[in-house]
C-alpha cells in the first residue's frame, strides 16, 4: 500500500486495484469546521483533475479534484450525516471516495508523504 499527495491537498492511497481518496490534515485545518460534503456516485467516470467532490466549511465552499483518472466504486456515505468526520480524521475515517485507476502511471506525478510535508511547510 502506498499513499500519494497532490498540490491541491488531496491524498490517495492505492491498495491493489482500488484507491481511496480524501483531503489532508493540512486541508481540513485550513477549511475549519466542515458542515457539508458531497461525494461522487458509484460508477462516475473521472479524469485526473476533474471536480470529484464538494466540501463546505462554515467559511467557504471548495472542490475536491480527482488526483488520477478512473471510476468511482464507492462514496463515503457516513459523511452525509457526519461531515465533521473530515475534521476529526481526514486521513482515515473521513475519506471521500474509492476509485479504480485507469492509468497507474499518473501516480508518478504525485508526491510521497515526505515531499508533501516539505511542500506544506513552505505554505
Amino acid at each position: 500500500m502506498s499513499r500519494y499527495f497532490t498540490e491541491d491537498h488531496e491524498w490517495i492511497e492505492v491498495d491493489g486495484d482500488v484507491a481511496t481518496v480524501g483531503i489532508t490534515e493540512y486541508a481540513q485545518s485550513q477549511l475549519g469546521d466542515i458542515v457539508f460534503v458531497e461525494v461522487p456516485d458509484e460508477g462516475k467516470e473521472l479524469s485526473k483533475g476533474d471536480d470529484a467532490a464538494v466540501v463546505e466549511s462554515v467559511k467557504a465552499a471548495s472542490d475536491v479534484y480527482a488526483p488520477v483518472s478512473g471510476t468511482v466504486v464507492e462514496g463515503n456515505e457516513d459523511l452525509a450525516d457526519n461531515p465533521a468526520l473530515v475534521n476529526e480524521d481526514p486521513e482515515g475515517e473521513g475519506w471521500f471516495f474509492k476509485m479504480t485507476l485507469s492509468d497507474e502511471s499518473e501516480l508518478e506525478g504525485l508526491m510521497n508523504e515526505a515531499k508533501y510535508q516539505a511542500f506544506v511547510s513552505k505554505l
Partner: protein
Amino acid sequence: MSETLDATAETETPIETLPLDAWHRARGGRMVPFAGYAMPVQYEGIMAEHLWTREHAGLFDVSHMGQLLFSGVEFDAGLEKLLPGDVKGLGEGRMRYSLLLSEEGGIHDDLMMTRLPADNAFEIDGGTIYMVVNGATKWDDLGVFREFLPDEVTINHLEDQALLALQGPEAVTALARVLPGVEKLVFMTAAAFEWNGNPLWVSRSGYTGEDGYEISLPGEAAEAFADALTAQPEVKPIGLGARDSLRLEAGLPLYGHDLDLETTPVAADLGFALSKRRREEGGFAGAERILAEREQGSAMKRVGLIVEGRQPVREGAAVVDASGAEVGKVTSGGFAPSVQKPIAMAYVPAALAAAGTKITLVQRGKQHSAEVVAMPFVPHRYVRKGA
C-alpha cells in the same frame, strides 16, 4: 482541492494594522485582510466561537469601524437631511440605528448614533452626536457627510480610538466585574466609565442578537483592557467569522452584502429606521421614493430563508421562478451553528416575501429548495428597560 469562494476574506490593499494586532496574533488569531485592515477571522474555530458567544461571552475587536463626532452649528438639522431617523429627538445617552441615504433613496451605510451627555469620554460638549459607521465604508461616508453637511458642522474622526464588543448572556456579569455600574445600562443606552485612568464610552448594544456591550476606548489602552476582559472566565476572543454567522442568525443585515446603494430602507425591511416624525415631515435624502415605497410597497424585499438539506447556499446564489428565470439574489448565507441548518438572506419579489413561501435557489448549477421564514432565526435576547 481549491477554494471556490470565501465568505469572510476580502482583499484590499494596502493593509493597515489596528491597536490589537499583536494581541490577536499572540492568541492564535488567524489574520485576514478586511476593510483595509488585518483582522482576526478566527481563533480556535468559527463554530466553537459562535456557540461560546451564544452561551457565555465573546470579545470582538471592531476597531476597523469608523467612530465620528458631529458638533458645531445646527448639526442635528444637517444630519436629518441625510438620515431618516429622529436625530433632534434623540436624548442624551440614547442610541439609535439609522441609515446614511443617497439622493435616490439607496443606502450609503448603516450606522449607530448616540447623543452624548456632558459627561462623556471624548472631551467634547454635551449634545454632540457620536456615530459608529462600517469600516469598509467610513472613508466614503466621510466624503458624503463633508459634501452635504454645512461647513459649520464639525466632524471629528476618532482614528486613534479602539472599539471592542463584548457579547453574550454572560457579558454583563464579566463586564460588571471590570466596570461596576454597566449592569444599570439597558439596551440602546450608553454612558461614560473610567478604567485605570482611561476614559471609556460604553453602550449596551451589539451585532449578535445577544445581550452585550460595545466599548470605545483609546487605542493605547486597548491591549490592557482586552487582557482584563479575557481574564474573566466567561470571556474568549472571537473572530470575524463567528461575528458574521452570529449576525446572520440574528437577522441583522451586513452592509456591502445585504445593503448597498441599490437597496432602499423599505426593500431592506428596515422600515423601523424611518421615525414617525421624519415620515410625516420628509426632508431627507431619497424621501420621495422611500415614502412612496412605504405606502405602496417595494418591488423586492429582504427576507430570511431556511434551506433544505445541509449544503450552505451563499451570497450570489440566484432566486429563480418556476421557469428557471432569475428573479432575486441571495445576499448572505451559510450554515447556522445555533440553528444547525443552512440559512440565508435574499432579496425576492414582493409576491414571494410572505413567511411560508417555498422558493427555489440555484448555486453553481444546482437547485436548492428553501422556505421564507420570519427573522431573526435565533431570538434576540436584548435587555430592555423594565425587563
